[in-house]
């Protein structure tokens, strides 16, 4: 699942925020905000995508840099979130 989540989100970002331009290189630990890939509208779009794609509900308090700002952060956050959803 690890690679799949990151690949899925990376594809969403490249397709929606970069017009499919794969020449823009960003690593799994690169800040999406500091690199100008994600802005405030982008955050709304990304959250809406994650909620739909993974069938989860993300609270405003969870929309933090440590959950959303890099692909690795997003992956860790989603893994935790989905475990909680399954447990409940």
């Amino acid at each position, binding site marked *: 699942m690890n690679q799949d989540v990151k690949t899925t989100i990376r594809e969403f970002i490249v397709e929606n925020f970069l017009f499919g331009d794969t020449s823009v290189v960003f690593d799994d630990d690169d800040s999406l*905000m*500091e690199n*100008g890939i994600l*802005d*405030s*509208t982008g*955050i*709304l*779009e990304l*959250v*809406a995508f994650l909620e739909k794609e993974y069938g989860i509900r993300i609270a*405003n*308090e969870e*929309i*933090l*840099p*440590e959950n*959303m700002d890099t692909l690795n952060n997003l992956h860790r956050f989603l893994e935790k979130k989905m475990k909680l959803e399954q447990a409940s």
Partner: protein
Amino acid sequence: MPFSKDDLKIDPAHETERIVSFMRQTVGRKLRKRGAVVGISGGIDSSVCLALSVQAFGAERVVGVAMPEADSNPESAVLARKLARQFGVRFIVEDMTAAQIGFGTYRRRDEAIRRVFPEYDPTYKAKIVLPNALDETGVLNVFQLTIISPEGEEKTKRIPPEEYLQIVAASNFKQRSRMAMLYYHAERLNYAVVGTGNKNEHEQGFFVKYGDGGADLKPIAHLFKTQVYQLAEYLNIPEEIRKRPPTTDTYSAECTQEEFFFRVPFEIGDLVWLGMERGVPVPEIAKATGLKEAQVENIMRDIRQKIRATEYLRMEPFHLDTKEEVVL
């Protein structure tokens, strides 16, 4: 000298002289216009710009235009009139409500609001807000929609991206139609349009491109909001205007600029930003503002992100040079 709020202090007399000289040179020599039109909202920034225009060109060469519409606070036009009278300029009121109805401003905005809150109707008030940046968790810019029923019941939800963009795009008709009206008066008089944005608005992108951002010169775009207040006192701007909290005057519900965009009080945000620009270490900024270092870092990140995210607002339209090659 340790970094402190005193670092934001300006010499208002000297600054006024510097700005007035810039305005005369720009309007007279570069733009070759004969005076200035200023949209006045009863707020601090436009009031200061009107006063500066009077010093630069003389009251007889300045026109103040108030442009209320159905959602405007009626107090705004009253204060604008008072200001125009005090400074002896010609004063014009243009009611922009019919123009907004023509553009479908209210209809398009309300359609989007109803998709989030089906119970919403024109008897409700609405606004868009951001979380406060002093929160130590560092919550990101997540736009939320608040509606207030006629009975005062308030409901808030995060806005989905499509609805957020439609509400903002519809509301932006207000600023764009105001710009069109200001240029009507400027062109008929052969005057320049004075933009009233301060540094916070100009650099963090709190303006509408080709709306309130559309102007011939922006005399206070280099000044922090707290410095505009210093200038306002020096220029004798009426106290009711100086004491009024800065609002967007765009949404039907009362909405301060802090709630909608800046996320922190100006006296804190300005000092953090100045410290950031001067490379002052975070612990020193924290001491000067009375904040925790984590809070300072959150505010710095928010400012940097806004400047970066709104770069496109400050860009001129792009075009190819005649022989420029592009990668196909």
